[in-house]
């Protein structure tokens, strides 16, 4: 090993070759890339351009721009405001807390419609929100360009996300169908005051308030002052968003074991 660093070692071949061989290699590379180097001029040319699909390839031989390599890409979200049910599940599932539900026009005045507003300065593109979306209205597209000069422009309002949806970009087709929450909404009847908040705020309208019989007043006891109704959840329509649990003023709704 030490002999490798011996400066007085006799070279075993013609020293002219030490210069000539690398220069020939460089000249060959120069000739190869004289008219068209392998790089593409990114802002002016793009890999998704069909011209490059056949030319540029990754190691596996699968061309970039088509096939799973590209279609699996998780970029900017697309939001279909029309089908959003304001269930809050996207914001709830976000590990970076980058989704905020903001009011959008179109809801009725009493129950404003709320849609996700995404801060791409924080987003990690994990895709949990689109997986969690029960209506499939929040999806991820292949759009990857987010450069701005202002940090505030990294926050995409629902309207802007809807614009992304309307540009008909290729959507990320790989959407994990999460197993539906095995739990369902259960009621602790003695605590309920029949206030209708859960039914009012349920995004899927799957809660109905059913009349319950008003009990007879026992002697020496007062009948509780309340509305004599109780929520009943239609499990097949419920998206398990938990809105009812969070709005219940008496905390009488909770997640229960599977039925």
């Amino acid at each position: 090993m030490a002999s490798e660093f011996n400066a007085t070692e006799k070279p075993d071949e013609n020293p002219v070759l030490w210069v000539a061989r690398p220069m020939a290699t460089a000249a060959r590379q120069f000739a190869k890339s004289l008219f068209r180097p392998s790089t593409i001029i990114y802002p002016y040319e793009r890999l998704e351009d069909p011209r490059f699909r056949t030319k540029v390839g990754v190691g596996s031989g699968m061309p970039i721009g088509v096939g799973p390599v590209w279609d699996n890409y998780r970029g900017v979200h697309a939001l279909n405001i029309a089908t959003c049910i304001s269930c809050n599940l996207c914001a709830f599932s976000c590990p970076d807390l980058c989704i905020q539900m903001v009011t959008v026009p179109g809801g009725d005045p009493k129950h404003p419609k709320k849609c996700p507003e995404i801060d791409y300065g924080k987003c990690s593109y994990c895709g949990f929100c689109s997986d969690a979306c029960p209506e499939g209205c929040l999806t991820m597209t292949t759009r990857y360009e987010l450069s701005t000069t202002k940090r505030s422009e990294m926050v995409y309002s629902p309207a802007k996300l809807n614009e992304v949806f309307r540009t008909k970009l290729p959507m990320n087709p790989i959407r994990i169908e999460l197993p539906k929450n095995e739990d369902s909404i259960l009621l602790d009847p003695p605590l309920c005051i029949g206030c209708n908040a859960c039914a009012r705020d349920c995004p899927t309208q799957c809660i109905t308030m059913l009349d319950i019989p008003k009990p007879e007043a026992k002697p020496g006891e007062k009948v509780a002052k309340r509305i004599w109704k109780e929520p009943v959840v239609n499990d097949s329509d419920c998206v398990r968003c938990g809105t009812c649990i969070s709005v219940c003023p008496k905390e009488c709704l909770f997640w229960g074991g599977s039925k």
Partner: protein
Amino acid sequence: MTTTTLYSVSYDLSRALLGAVGSVLPPGARDALTSSNAVTALAVLVFCVILLAASMLNTIVLIWWERKLLGRFMDRRGAMHVGYAGLLQNFADGLKLFRKTTVSPREADGLGFYFGPTAYMVSSLVIFGILPISSGWNAGALPLSLLLALTIFSFAPLFIFVSAWSSNNKYSLMGGLRSAAQMIAYEVPLLLAVVAVVIVSGSFDLTTIVYDQRNYWFWGPLFLALVVFVAAMLAEMERIPFDLPEAEAELVEGWNTEYGGMLFAFFMLADYLRALVGSILVVLLFLGGWTLPSWVPAGLTSFPLAGIVWFMVKTYAVFGLFVWIRASLPRVRTDQLLRVGWNRMIPLALLSVFLAAALVTVRCVPVLGCVPSVGA
């Protein structure tokens, strides 16, 4: 005088300028302004400004040329965004450096710290006043212009060492020491290779050397001298594979580690000015300067400013060779560098001197061509 020279252009320009200014002044002041002394003084100034602008412009374009060529050698494109094919990128970089604050280290010696880069830059610029670009396109026909150019060219290690020493930084100092050792080692073969040319041509005047090549360029008969000259010039310009003084892997940035902003731009520009001077010297000494061989069709040499055009084409081609070498060869070690310099280059250069002496005696070599007789 019907031939256009750089001086005649600047003389006409200064006469027109002074005439325009003088026409709005009272007669006494007008006469003083348009007197031949005043016109000559302004002409010299205009001459210098034209020379400065031309050399800086060429230097910056040379950096672009290197970046583009290096890009192709590396299967990429180099600068692309600013200007057509990135032509204005280096102007933008220069403006950025111009705007930046010049920061000097607290421990640095202020005088040397600012004097070094400035003198390095100025000494590199002065050479352009000596080099003939085309017939008539130089400052003056000095009988020893080659000697003067090489003398100013070899001032550089002094200024580099001054700035390295006064930076008060170990990397700067090591870079400066390496630079001095390298430049002194390669100064000898460089000058010996030039001696071969001078023996054949019999003159130190660059214009005469170019005219002596009107029949046969010297690169053929003096090929060995050309090889030695190019290798020694690479070391003098501190370009890869001889860029040990600023070996960024070991010495941060070598002798310009502590420099930023405009002072760094001075170093950068002066490096490329020297590269330009090196390419020009190769063209003047070995490639026939602005002349073309006689078998070239007359239409290629008779258009206006043809000499300058062909001179620039040759210069950029020679610089392309330097870039090719940079793209191919790795940096050598210090011991290899000095061993090659003293043990290989000097014997080869001496051999080329003897070959030149033999050529002068023989006059013509069957394959390589002929050389003019001394004093012809």
